């Protein structure tokens, strides 16, 4: 027997109480783990952004387009290594619910600024050469069962052709992957092919991606670009790719703040419940603590034991919750089609490590008051109450 045995036995002396407390902590950490995994996917654009890539959008909003001619002018700015552009197609396949995230791009320049996109050389060449080609990310191709040579229609819920239809026919001539964690859950096609049939908004583009010669030049390049288009009908705003991705993710609201609120609410509730229960549990054991002190257990050792009890409870619940979250995330990620829409969904290591840190912190916070109370137990008073 050692102190750990005592801690463990005290912790589980009232099994139902211990199980319910563990369960409540487990739920908080399950929420933390699952939301952490989803947040990572949501925020992956910012994490995967290159240091020397900038994005220029219309100053009003990134959903408002700007003239195609801006692309050429930006390429001439000092410090710009390469530039490309894209336009949001808002595509779907057959049914509006079967979404395909699709961009109209200039293939050659686009692939130059995005070396993270991995193509077979002949498919890369085919994509650049064939104006009806649709380059499809592996996750999307797998989800819809598409393969090279397939001819498929994609419909837009934004754009229309001059003949009134919203359907474009494409030939799948390339299937690409993302390097490491880079997402491959979208499709691309020739801007020219799409632009020539547009019923409105011709020669307009959504955003321009700029690769600078060095990340050190980002600020000056961004400044030059925005100054160049100042006081024009389409003023621009240029920011780093990371900031752009974050802004894109936050168009649905401040996700980080929402998650913080949800997780914070769960943890505040748990803190109150577990803290109050621990205080009650230790108060019930005042007599036993007095006996231990009588036997010669020093007050600091009793303080440590009570605090350890709380930390152990929190760690057990926390690890079970994180483990369950890992299991759930793994199951969700393995479900058909999920990788097409939530690429790279997994339990991030930093969420797991952060979770363990949070469990220890929760244990310390909920255990500190009972531990101080236990340390202060007066033997004579406590034994006199028996």
């Amino acid at each position, binding site marked *: *027997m050692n102190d750990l045995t*005592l801690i463990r036995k005290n912790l589980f002396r009232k099994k139902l109480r211990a199980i319910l407390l563990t369960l409540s902590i487990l739920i908080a950490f399950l929420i933390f783990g699952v939301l952490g995994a989803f947040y990572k996917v949501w925020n992956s654009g910012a994490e995967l952004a290159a240091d020397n890539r900038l994005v220029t959008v219309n100053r009003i909003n990134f959903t408002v387009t700007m003239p195609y001619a801006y692309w050429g002018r930006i390429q001439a700015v000092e410090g710009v290594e390469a530039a490309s552009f894209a336009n949001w197609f808002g595509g779907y396949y057959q049914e509006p619910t079967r979404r395909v995230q699709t961009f109209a791009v200039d293939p050659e320049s686009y692939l130059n600024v995005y070396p993270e996109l991995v193509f077979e050389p002949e498919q890369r060449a085919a994509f650049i050469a064939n104006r009806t080609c649709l380059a499809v990310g592996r996750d999307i191709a797998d989800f819809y069962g598409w393969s090279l040579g397939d001819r498929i229609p994609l419909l837009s819920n934004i754009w229309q052709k001059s003949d009134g239809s919203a359907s474009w026919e494409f030939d799948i001539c390339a299937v690409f992957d993302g390097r490491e964690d880079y997402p491959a859950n979208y499709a691309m096609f020739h801007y020219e092919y799409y632009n020539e049939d547009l019923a409105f908004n011709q020669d307009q583009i959504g955003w321009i991606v700029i690769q600078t010669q060095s990340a050190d030049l980002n600020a000056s390049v961004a400044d030059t670009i925005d100054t160049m288009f100042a006081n024009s009908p389409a003023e621009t705003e240029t920011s780093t790719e990371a900031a752009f991705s974050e802004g894109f993710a936050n168009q649905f609201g401040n996700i980080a703040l929402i998650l913080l609120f949800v997780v914070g609410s769960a943890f505040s509730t748990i803190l109150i419940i577990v803290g109050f229960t621990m205080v009650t549990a230790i108060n019930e054991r005042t007599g*036993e603590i007095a006996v231990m002190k*009588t036997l*010669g*257990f020093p007050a600091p050792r009793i303080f440590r034991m009570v605090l350890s009890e709380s930390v152990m409870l929190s760690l057990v619940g926390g690890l079970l919750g994180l483990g369950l979250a890992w299991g759930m995330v793994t199951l969700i990620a393995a479900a058909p089609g999920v990788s097409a829409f939530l690429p790279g969904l997994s339990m991030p290591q930093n969420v797991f490590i952060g979770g363990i840190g949070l469990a220890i912190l929760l244990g310390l916070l909920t255990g500190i008051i009972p531990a101080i109370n236990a340390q202060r137990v007066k033997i*004579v008073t406590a034994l006199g109450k*028996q």
Partner: protein
Amino acid sequence: MASLYELKDLSKRYTRGKETITIFEELTMSIPQGDFIAIMGPSGSGKTTLLNLLGGIDRPSSGSVECEGVRVDKLSEGKLAKWRSQHVGFIFQFYNLMPTLTAAQNVELPLLLTKLSGKQRKERVATALDIVGLADRKGHRPRQLSGGQQQRVAIARAIVADPKVLLCDEPTGDLDRASADEILETLQLLNRELGKTIVMVTHDPSAAKYAARELHLDKGRFIEAKAEPAQ
């Protein structure tokens, strides 16, 4: 017999609201090593308070408590805890065993404060349980034992670290006669065979008869009632 305890001019006063209650005033006594004293007296006479002062779990208002030359009343809380673990074994009226631990684990508790190895602790626990006749109950939890058996486990816990003195506060107060006699015989055995100094507080005159000396505490003074054990 050499003196184990020296109490000089010991006073204990409590303050309750604006009132000061004096338990005893300028009490002086000596407890020889190997003695078995029964302290009797009416409720509120200060029997348990005296036991607490001897055990270093309470401090006097004035005067001194000396044990083998150590001023117990002057020790810091930390040193006092260590001193208790090495010198004193406590036996309570309501046994005060840990309900979640087995008999053997309860007995082992004081040994967690020593540097003994796990094997040595097990041997000591087995010996202590054997002395109180509960070797076959080592795996039982307190609720699976009778009151008498629980008190014997408490005695084993009190002697396992081999203290010189056992302080017993109404050790038979919660037991039937037969169990009480067993406990008192065990205490007598510990006093006679192992030389433990025992100070026992009791209300029960028949329990006091097991002691070598009976002291009656009344109005802060001792009256010695008996010098030799009757049984």
